[in-house]
C-alpha cells in the first residue's frame, strides 16, 4: 500500500480554529499550480517502482481552485505516477465552493470519494468558528455531489465547539446519519496556539464547553453513531461496512506515502531506510525552489528501527482493531507483544489493552487515554 497526498493551500477564508497552512489570498494560485506540476514531474522518475492505491487531495479547500484545475491535476498525477485502477481518490470540499460544475469535473476526472467539511449543522456554531457556509449550503452541496455521481461521501463534524451542547452535537450527527453518508469523521476541537480562536478563548471573549461536557458529548455522540450502524474504526472515524478511508488507514498502518505541495509530509522506504521528510511551509520558497528545478524538501530524517517500531504502534493503536501482530512481525521480525512485553502487560492488566492471537488493540478506556498508553510504550 502506498498513497499520494496533494496539498492545496488556499481557502475562501481561514476558519478561526485552523492552524493548517492555507491562504485566503488566492492570487498565488497560478504560480502554485505551475510549481506543483513541476514537483510531480520531478518525482515521477523516482516513483516508477511504486503503485499508488490512494490519492488524497486536501487543504485548505481544493474546491476553491478555478474550474478545470483539479481535472488537470488528476491528469498530471496519472501521467507521472502509477495509480492503481482501483485507487481510492478523495478530494476535500467545503460547501461554499463545491459547485455542481466543479463536482462534475471531479467525478469525471476519476475522483471517487468526497470529504465534505460540515463541522456542525448549527449555523450559530458554524459562524462562531468562522465557517462561511450554512447548514443549507451543505445540503445543497451534498445534493450536487450526489447528482454528479458521488456515493462515497464523508462529512467532517466537530464537538467541543463554542456554544455547542450535547443536544446540538447529536442534532448534527442525526443530520449526517439520516442523509445516509457512509463515513463520518468526528473530531474534538483542538485549540491550537496562534489561531484566532485560541486568542479569543485566552482573552475570555469565547468560552468553550469544559472538558467534561465535551467528554459527555463525545460519549453520547459516539454511542449514537454505533446505534446507527457506524463502526468506529479509528479514534475519530466512523464508517458503514466497506467505507473506511483507505488513504488514512495507510497512515495508521505506517505505510508509504508521497506528499506533494506546500508543507506536505512524506514517508518512504528509500534504499531500505524508513525515511520521513516534508516540504517547506513557505509559499515563496516552494515556488522559487521548484522554479530552479530543486525539490523544496526539508527535515529529511532516517527513522531508526526502534523508532519505526514505535511509530507503527503509535499509529496502529489509533485503529480500533489495533496492530496486526503478523504484519508487525513481517516488517520487524519480532512480535509486538513480545517486543513491548512490560508495557503491554501493564496496560492489559489495567484494562486498557486487549491482546489476541492476531492483534493487540486498545479498549474504549484505552482509546480515551491513548496518550498515556502510548507513553508506556515510549518509555519502554
Amino acid at each position: 500500500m502506498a498513497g499520494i497526498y496533494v496539498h492545496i493551500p488556499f481557502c475562501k477564508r481561514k476558519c478561526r480554529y485552523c492552524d493548517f497552512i492555507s491562504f485566503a489570498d488566492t492570487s498565488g494560485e497560478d504560480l502554485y499550480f505551475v510549481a506543483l506540476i513541476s514537483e510531480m514531474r520531478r518525482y515521477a522518475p523516482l516513483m516508477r517502482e511504486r503503485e499508488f492505491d490512494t490519492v488524497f487531495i486536501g487543504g485548505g479547500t481544493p474546491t476553491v481552485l478555478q474550474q478545470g484545475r483539479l481535472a488537470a491535476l488528476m491528469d498530471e498525477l496519472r501521467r507521472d505516477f502509477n495509480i492503481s485502477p482501483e485507487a481510492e481518490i478523495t478530494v476535500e470540499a467545503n460547501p461554499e465552493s463545491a459547485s455542481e460544475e466543479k463536482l462534475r469535473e471531479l467525478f469525471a476526472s476519476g475522483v471517487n470519494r468526497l470529504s465534505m467539511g460540515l463541522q456542525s449543522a448549527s449555523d450559530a456554531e458554524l459562524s462562531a468558528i468562522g465557517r462561511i457556509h450554512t447548514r443549507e449550503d451543505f445540503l445543497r452541496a451534498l445534493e450536487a455531489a450526489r447528482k454528479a455521481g458521488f456515493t462515497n461521501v464523508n462529512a467532517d463534524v466537530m464537538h467541543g465547539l463554542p456554544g455547542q451542547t450535547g443536544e446540538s452535537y447529536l442534532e448534527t450527527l442525526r443530520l449526517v446519519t439520516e442523509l445516509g453518508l457512509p463515513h463520518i469523521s468526528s473530531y474534538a476541537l483542538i485549540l491550537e496556539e496562534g489561531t484566532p480562536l485560541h486568542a479569543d478563548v485566552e482573552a475570555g471573549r469565547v468560552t468553550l464547553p469544559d472538558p467534561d461536557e465535551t467528554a459527555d458529548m463525545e460519549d453520547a455522540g459516539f454511542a449514537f453513531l454505533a446505534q446507527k450502524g457506524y463502526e468506529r474504526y479509528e479514534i475519530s472515524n466512523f464508517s458503514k461496512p466497506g467505507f473506511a478511508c483507505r488513504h488514512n488507514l495507510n497512515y495508521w498502518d505506517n505505510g508509504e506515502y508521497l506528499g506533494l505541495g506546500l508543507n506536505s509530509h512524506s514517508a518512504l522506504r528509500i534504499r531500505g531506510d524508513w525515511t520521513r521528510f516534508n516540504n517547506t511551509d513557505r509559499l515563496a520558497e516552494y515556488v522559487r525552489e521548484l522554479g530552479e528545478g530543486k525539490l523544496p524538501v526539508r527535515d529529511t530524517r532516517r527513522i531508526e528501527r526502534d523508532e519505526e517500531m514505535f511509530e507503527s504502534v503509535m499509529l496502529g493503536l489509533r485503529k480500533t482493531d489495533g496492530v496486526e501482530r503478523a504484519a508487525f512481525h513481517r516488517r520487524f521480525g519480532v512480535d509486538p507483544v513480545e517486543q513491548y512485553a512490560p508495557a503491554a502487560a501493564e496496560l492489559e492488566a489495567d484494562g486498557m489493552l486487549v491482546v489476541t492471537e492476531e492483534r493487540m488493540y486498545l479498549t474504549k478506556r484505552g482509546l480515551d487515554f491513548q496518550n498515556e498508553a502510548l507513553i508506556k510504550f515510549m518509555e519502554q
Partner: protein
Amino acid sequence: MAFPKELIRNFSIIAHIDHGKSTLADRLMQLTQTVAERDMEEQLLDSMDIERERGITIKSTAVRMFYTAKDGREYMLNLIDTPGHVDFTYEVSRALAACEGAVLVVDATQGIEAQTLANVYLALDNDLEIIPVINKIDLVSADPENAIHEIEDIIGLPAEDAPQISAKTGLNVQDVLERIVSDIPAPKGDPDAPLKALIFDSLYDNYMGALSYVRVVEGTVRPGDRIRFMHSGNEFDVTEVGVFDPRRLPVKELTAGEVGYISASIKSVAETKVGDTITLASNPAKEPLHGYKQANPMVFCGIYPADGADYEALKEALDKLVLNDASISYEPETSQALGYGFRCGFLGLLHMEIAEERLEREFDLDLVTTAPSVIYRVIMLDGSVRMIDNPSNLPSPMEIQRMEEPMVSAHIMTPPEYVGSIMELCQEKRGLFIDMTYLEENRVKLTYRMPLNEIIFDFFDGLKSRSRGYASFDYELGEYEESDLVKLDFLLNGDMCDALSTIVHRDKAYAKGRAVAEKLQEVIPRQQFEIPIQAAIGGKIIARETVRAVRKDVLAKCYGGDITRKKKLLEKQKEGKKRMRQVGTVSVPSDAFMSVLRIN
C-alpha cells in the same frame, strides 16, 4: 617599598538595594582610571549573573584605586564592597570592620530605608567615619532637600554639605573622591608588629583554592610565610599575596593598613572563615581581632533533583557551591515523595533563593524545593531537647512536652499611610507590637516581635504589596519562645506526602490547611481517577478538596501525514510526566511542591 600609610584610605559604600551603590563604584573606578573605558562593564563589581539581575551584591569584593587629589598627592583608595541584604549582616559587619570610613549613598527619590539604617548602625558600631552622599539628583522626582533632612533627622549626621551626585551621569562624583581623601582617616597599625589580618570575605578559585580577602591591621605578610588562622588553629604556607585592581594582581607583601588577598593552597572556604584573624605561625599575635562569630544557618529546606537520576550531579554541585560559601550546610535526606536529596541550611530566605538559583543556573540542574523551615526546639516529656529543622522529623505529639520557636525583632520603615495595613499584616503573622516611632514627618518605624517562621514564607512580598513597595524591612534574631505548634500534613488519595508537611501555629493551621489544599487542587493535574486531597493535624482531617478524574487524554486530530508533530506532542507529555513525583498512586508535578509555598 610599602605605600605611605598616611596616603591610604580604606572605605566601604553603604546603600539600600537600588540606591546606586554599584553604579557609584563603577564611576569611582572610571574616574581613577582603574578600569579602562573599553573594559568598563556596567557594575563591574557585581560579577555574578544573579547579582546583576537582582541588583544586589552577594559577595564582598574589593578594589584598589589610585587617585591624585587636589592637594597634588596620590592616594591609594581601597574600596570594599559589601553585600546589601539582611541575610548577610555579619559579612557586612566584617567588611565594615576592615575600613576606616564609609560612603553612605541615599537615593534622592527614596530617602532612607530600613536596611540602610541597619548598615549605618553597623558602621557606627565600627567607629567608621561616614560620608553621606545624595544620589540620583538627575531624576525629575529627586528631592535632595528631603534626603538631607532625613539623614540629619534619622541618623543624626550633618548632611548640609553632602555631595549631590548622579552616579549614572558622573555628575559631582569627583567631590566624593575628595571627601574620601579629606574626611576618612588613614589606617593606623604597625607594619613590624605581629601579623593581624582580618578576613572579610573568601572566595574559591579553581586554580588557587580558597583565597582570603583580608585587611591587614598589624604587621606584614609575604609569600613563603607560614600563617595561622587564629580561631581554627590551622596553618598554611602562603603562596601568593596580592591586591585587586580590580582583577587580582600579585604583590611582594601586604602590610598594615592595606587590603588584599592571601593565597595558601587552601582546599575549601570552610577553612577561611569570615571574621577570623590570620597571624604568623612564627610570631603570632597574642589576641585575635574581636568580632569573630560562626555564621549559623537559620532557614532550612529540602532540595531534590527534579529528575531523580541527577542526585549525584546535585551532590557535586553542592560540594562546589559550599567551596565558595561556607555558610551553607547540607546533608543527605530521603523523602518518600521526592526520593534522595539534601536538607540544606541558609542564613536567610534570600540566601536560600540565591543558592537555589545558582544551583539551577551555574550547574544546570532542575530542582524541587520543599517549604522552608526554621529550627524548632522540641522539649520531650523526659526533659531532653531536640532541635528539629525538618517537619518530617518531628516526634509524635504524645512524646512532646512543649515546643519553642525562634523569634525576631522586625523593624519596618514605611510612609505613615501604609502603617494600618502593615500592622494588619504583622498581626496576621503573629507579630507582637513593640513600638512605633515617627522618625520624621514622612517616615514611621514599626518594631514587632515576630516568629521567624512567619517571616520566611511570604512576609516580604506581603509587605511590599501592602506598601506599594515603599516599606523596607530588617530583622535581628531573638530568643526562642514557647509556642503552640502543630504539624500540618497533607494526604493525596489517602497517602501522606512528607514533602508537604509543615510546622505551623495551631491558630493558623486551619486556614493554611485549606489554602494549601486548594492550591494543590489547582496544580495537580487531573488523572484517570478522582484524587481526594486532605489536610490533617495528627489523624484529624481539617480540610478536603478533590481533583476530579480526567475523562479523555487522546489526540483527536489527524494532522495529515505529519507524524512528527504527533510524536512531539507525546514527547512533551512524557517529559511532563518525568517531572512528576509519585505520591502513592498520585502523580504530582515537581513545581507543585514549590507553588504551595506561595499561597494567598
